[in-house]
């Protein structure tokens, strides 16, 4: 089985560990890989997590990606957008998101590229990033680790706060884990520097340094732990039987 393990499966498994010690927090994985990863966390390292159906209801069992028979969902509670705000302002959530840019301070951007008054590329808008990053723990998944995503200097529009904030003395961000197509990182280096925790198979430290627009710390250059047989089975059979994950890296 190990020979055929794909990059998306390595990323999903590495990302799932983000929620390991979160108890009953609401796990929100936004995007394919984070969503499958949250489901894997609930089926392996943390069954106590709360999770939604991607819309309005809390479900007891992670849902498979793609079309499903929704009448089989085991619904355990209600989570409207209004309630999501209440939950997140109270710090009761750990989200995994994919910003368009991230910088050495951990600041993230999903708003626009270029000058905000007349953007070169308009993206989504800051959406919930300002509230998320000041209120609760977040992890990050970046499928295209490069100097365009890990930018030199600061991101074009700071949507999620980083560790350099001059304000909000009572609230520091908590960026827990950063998983990319090249490796696994956190922001627990000296003075909240991004630090490497492990490298995916076939990737070198040079690849990572070249593709990051700022200096990083190297805590470990060991290879990222590969999915176990159980994790692979859950990803392939329970969480993503239709293989939607393959689209992320064109597998």
């Amino acid at each position, binding site marked *: 089985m190990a020979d055929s393990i794909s990059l998306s499966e390595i990323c999903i498994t590495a990302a799932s560990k983000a929620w390991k010690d979160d108890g009953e927090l609401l796990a929100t994985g936004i995007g394919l890989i984070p969503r499958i990863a949250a489901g894997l966390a609930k089926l392996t390292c943390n069954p106590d997590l709360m999770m939604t159906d991607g819309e309005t209801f809390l479900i007891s069992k992670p849902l498979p990606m793609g079309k499903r028979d929704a009448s089989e969902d085991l619904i355990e509670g209600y989570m409207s957008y209004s309630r999501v705000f209440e939950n997140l302002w109270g710090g009761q959530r750990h989200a995994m998101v994919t910003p368009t840019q991230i910088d050495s301070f951990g600041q993230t951007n999903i708003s626009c590229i270029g000058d905000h008054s007349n953007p070169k590329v308009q993206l989504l808008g800051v959406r919930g990033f300002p509230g998320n990053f000041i209120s609760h723990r977040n992890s990050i998944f970046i499928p295209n680790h490069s100097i365009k995503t890990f930018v030199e200097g600061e991101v074009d529009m700071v949507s999620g706060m980083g560790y350099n904030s001059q304000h909000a003395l009572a*609230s520091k961000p908590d960026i827990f884990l950063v998983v990319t197509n090249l490796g696994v990182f956190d922001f627990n280096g000296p003075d909240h520097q991004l630090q490497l925790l492990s490298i995916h198979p076939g990737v070198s430290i040079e690849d990572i340094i070249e593709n990051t627009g700022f200096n990083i710390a190297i805590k470990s250059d060991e290879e990222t732990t590969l999915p176990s047989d159980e994790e692979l089975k859950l990803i392939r059979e329970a969480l993503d039987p239709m293989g939607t994950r393959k689209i992320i890296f064109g597998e």
Partner: protein
Amino acid sequence: MNKILSHSDVISQLSDGMTIGVGGWGARRKPMSLIRAICQSDLKDLTIVSYGGPDVGLLCAHRKVKKLIFGFVSLDMIPLDSHFRQARQNGELEVMELDEGMVQWGLRAAAMKLSFLPTRVGFGTDVLKNNPEIKLITSPYADGEQYVAMPALNLDVALLHVNKSDQKGNTQIFGPDPFFDEMFARAAKKTYVSAEEVVETEGLGGKEGAIFNRFERSLVTGVTHAPGGAHPTSCAPNYGFDMEHLKTYSAAAKSFEDYNDKYLNISHTDYIEVVGGEAFVNNIPLPQF
């Protein structure tokens, strides 16, 4: 009491420069028939407050928007709205870009007749840098913490789409998530709703139906009957969003004339026929996320 109005009656009660809040969320339960009616009108220089979807895109395409107060503009399955992007990238829009929770906080402040509500949200981000009108406030209590004073978003008008209403404006929203329509209604001087179905009060379903009444009728100025009125956005549980139409709409950013002629220069009744008829709209399956 009878609050039933036509689309053109509603438009005649709006005026240039108004601040208009639009209910729904992204590509979900947007009062699109009223938005199309605004596009057909001479109204201009509007300030729009929205959890944005194709409502914002269409109004941008028609240059109705002077200022947009928003947290995002998205069509859900299609992450970005091409018309809104074009307006932004051409530098046509004045914007107040906020965290989506700050939008709610601003509406809630207006709803409670407060000038602001405190929050930590916004600190450490460019939301404060780009909106210098947002001030800070220090807690008067022992903690002395500094907060963002999110100003009230007072609306002249709120436009909402609901599943059912009677003539008095007793509305019901059956979708599992009512979004922030209640806050829009409370933040506005006047609220106009379009409704999938207009019934006698006896047809509202008694106690069981009343649970879906998300805000009281005293907030509602006018009710327009608009079956399929949210199309191409969704209106759970009646219908899902029309992906094919949203794709056509998105592609129309390149040449808007054809789309405009086909879908916007006609009455709502004709629009529903052109997009496939009421039965077609009511059969669009609800999306799975």
